[in-house]
């Protein structure tokens, strides 16, 4: 399997040969940032189209078909449209916070996005508390949403923001606990470490029942964390028109939209990292020929494929279920998911100490 670190190492040595080491590091940082943002926006576009096609397929429709062959240029039209739209500034809003809010939301999603294991040796941020870092930075998003709702000076946005605050903070616990369950199994918080630990089998298969339970809890909680249906209460279209971003327009609204789709990719990516082996190919111990064939598929494709598969599951849920009510949603988290998650963590700890896992 191709190791991308050879490329990055080569580039690093090349740059250091040309310029002093501080300049080389600065150049690398800028390069990484550009790459990251480019990947971010391209993926967002792919995801919007992906959602439209999946949603159309589920709903017996064809989705976009008019712009370009099979509607493939639709997304460019949409991007152009949203970029050229007027940003309407309202009276009596808190201007600074109002403009800051969408950037905070995007910041949180870019930071988590940067932690994903893109391929063998291809990672933007990798350090020994990687998973911890993901949990920490993903919480910045809720701040942006609360600020957006508060600074808009509207009753709808305020209700949306309050719902969102309650929802994201609650479900972050479940996400955290299910991640912790896997960290317990892997024995490391490093993202590379977790992926490497799944070389002989993905955690979903290796970890017995506790891993499966953690996986299900993660799917439910991540959906809620992402404000996607059936947990899309903060922007509950039919109650609050658009919830916390009702008053936003133009690219500011676009940023919320962008962050929402990228967060979908991020949670799918984390799910594939924790449960489906990240970029690790599917290996079945004993079948060496099969494993060798699997190794020929590039690691980046493995990662993207798993992330897209997870996204499909999220979309499937999104387009099948009605929306829950705020009290039902909180009851689900505090009465069911969190106690089950905590018990599951204990079970996982026992499994690991006894060595019952595969």
């Amino acid at each position: 399997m191709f190791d991308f670190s050879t490329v990055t190492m080569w580039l690093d040595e090349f740059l250091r040969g040309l310029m002093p080491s501080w300049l080389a590091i600065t150049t690398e940082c800028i390069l990484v940032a550009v790459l990251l943002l480019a990947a971010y926006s391209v993926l967002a576009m792919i995801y919007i189209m992906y959602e439209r096609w999946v949603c159309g397929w589920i709903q017996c429709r064809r989705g976009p078909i008019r712009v370009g062959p099979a509607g493939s240029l639709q997304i460019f039209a949409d991007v152009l449209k949203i970029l050229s739209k007027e940003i309407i500034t309202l009276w009596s809003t808190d201007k600074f916070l109002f403009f800051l809010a969408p950037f905070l939301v995007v910041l949180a999603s870019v930071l988590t996005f940067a932690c994903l294991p893109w391929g063998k040796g291809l990672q933007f941020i990798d350090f020994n508390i990687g998973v911890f870092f993901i949990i920490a930075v993903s919480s910045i998003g809720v701040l942006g949403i609360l600020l957006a709702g508060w600074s808009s000076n509207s009753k709808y946005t305020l209700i949306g923001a309050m719902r969102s605050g309650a929802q994201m903070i609650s479900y972050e616990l479940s996400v955290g606990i299910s991640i912790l369950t896997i960290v317990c199994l892997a024995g490391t918080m490093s993202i590379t470490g977790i992926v490497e630990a799944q070389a002989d089998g993905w955690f979903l298969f290796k970890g017995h029942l506790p891993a499966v339970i953690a996986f299900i809890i993660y799917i439910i909680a991540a959906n809620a964390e992402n404000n996607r249906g059936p947990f899309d209460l903060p922007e509950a279209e039919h109650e609050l028109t658009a919830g916390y971003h009702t008053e936003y327009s133009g690219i500011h609204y676009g940023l919320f939209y962008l962050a929402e789709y990228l967060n979908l990719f991020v949670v799918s990516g984390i799910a594939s990292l924790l449960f489906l082996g990240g970029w690790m190919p599917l290996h079945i111990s004993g079948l060496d020929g099969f494993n060798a064939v699997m190794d020929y598929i590039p690691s980046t494709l493995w990662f993207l494929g798993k992330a897209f598969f997870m996204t499909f599951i999220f979309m499937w849920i999104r387009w099948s279920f009605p929306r829950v009510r705020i009290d039902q949603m909180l009851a689900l988290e505090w009465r069911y998911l969190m106690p089950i998650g905590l018990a599951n963590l204990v079970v996982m700890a026992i499994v690991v100490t006894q060595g019952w896992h595969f």
Partner: protein
Amino acid sequence: MADLQEQISKACPDVQIDNSGQWPLLTVANATWHETATKLKEQLNFDQLMALVGVDWGDAIGVIYYFTNTQTGDIIHVKVVADDRDKPYIHTVSDLWAVANYQEREAYDFYGIIFVNHPDMRRFFLRNDWVGHPLRKDYDANPELNPIRLDDETNEDYTCRYVEKDGKVVKIDGKVFEDDEYVINVGPQHPSTHGVMRYRVSLDGEIVKKVDVVSGYIHRGIEKLCESLTYPQTLLYTERMDYMAAHINRHCLCLCIEKALGIEVPHRAELIRLMMDELMRLSSHLLSYGCLTMDQGATTAFFYGFRDRELIYDIFDRTCGARMSMSYSTIGGVVADVHPDFITDVRHACDVIEKNMKEYHQLFTGNVIARNRMIGVGLLSKEDAINYAITGPSGRASGCHCDVRKTHPYSLYDEFDFEEVTRTEGDSMARYMVRMDEMVQSIKILRQACDKLEQEGAQGEYIAKVPKMIKLPAGHWYQQVEASRGAFGVYIESDGDSKPFQKPMRMHFQSPCFNLIGVVDLTCRDNMIADLITITASIDFVIPDIDR
């Protein structure tokens, strides 16, 4: 009938009873009206106010009330005339029949009749600053009095009521909401008010404390317009009220005019009308399924409902030449015979919808989230349903046997074998399930009708001989049908004018949705804001039908 008359004269001896019409007509003076009304409700058990029609007879202004006894199905109507034409006062009955609350506000809006002791005497449709009361015969339609106003209408935070004090009527001001209430505005532009309806909702956190309905954003003054049209022209407006019951509403007006003229409609025409009514009901319930699911966020189910609705609209398209506002029924029958493939198409649509209904139940009915959102939410008791005159699927979900097709059969419904679907829970789920089960019954009726139409042959007499000039004799008539959302009634009063193009003196449409909107406050109170949307979707009203 004679029995009923005896009972009435025993209970209220000072009331004149006229038995010449279809139903007994009671004439009551305003001074004794409230007392008589109490007796009618408590002793004679006329527990439902079907319709409240304000009428201006030129020399006098008054109200005609239609009451029904929901147990026996007896109907009476009562005429109350105000003493003074210029300052008409009539005692309210909103304390006896809750539905009268909004109905009286409508009469106040149109005729300026002030209902003494009414708790909330505001206009219902028109702006606060509207000059005059448009349905009065002495109304000044000068556009300078009521120009197109470009300023915002002020929020109706203030209300008033009129009470009697020392023999004089005194106005007392009141407030709709207190100063410290957190009031949010739902509508008139809102994704799930199903049209331009506006509620002002007082919230305590997520809990709804009070809902104030502000109507009139799509008010077209249909009743006023009808007074300047000939009878065949008025037919067009019926389809623009509840557009999801276009055929049924038009059928009702046709029946009412035919009743007044004494026209016998050919069997085939009545059969075709009935089939169109049932197709309309089917399509309406499919739409209602779609909207209810979408309002809870299940967008996919919405598309399922809309997909199958297309089949029905295609049938309309082929036979009537239009998909909405079909203009198919006419006085004396239908305008044209059905399309040659009509029966095949209807059978096909029935088969497809019947098959797909399993899918609807799988996708939505059994879903745990949907069940949690609907079971036990938005309760409406049977007593309240009768008191608020809630008919149609929403009334039957509370256990009322209010299907006009069964209680007062019209058209050919007594020839068909179908069941009246009722439930007793009275929650959102029951209202939803009644609609789903009614679709099955509609399919059953349609299949029987297909057989009957087949026996009649490919062609036949589809319209009766009708005079070129429709002229109604002097008198008034009331006709009710079961529209897709409840009992739809038409009241026609004619002065027997002998001029060639006779126009109705008064035409009133008693739309089912007007009553449905009356229970929004009752059912949504102390529920969550998210439930407000679910409950209103399950009550299922069409805004143009409220606003008319």
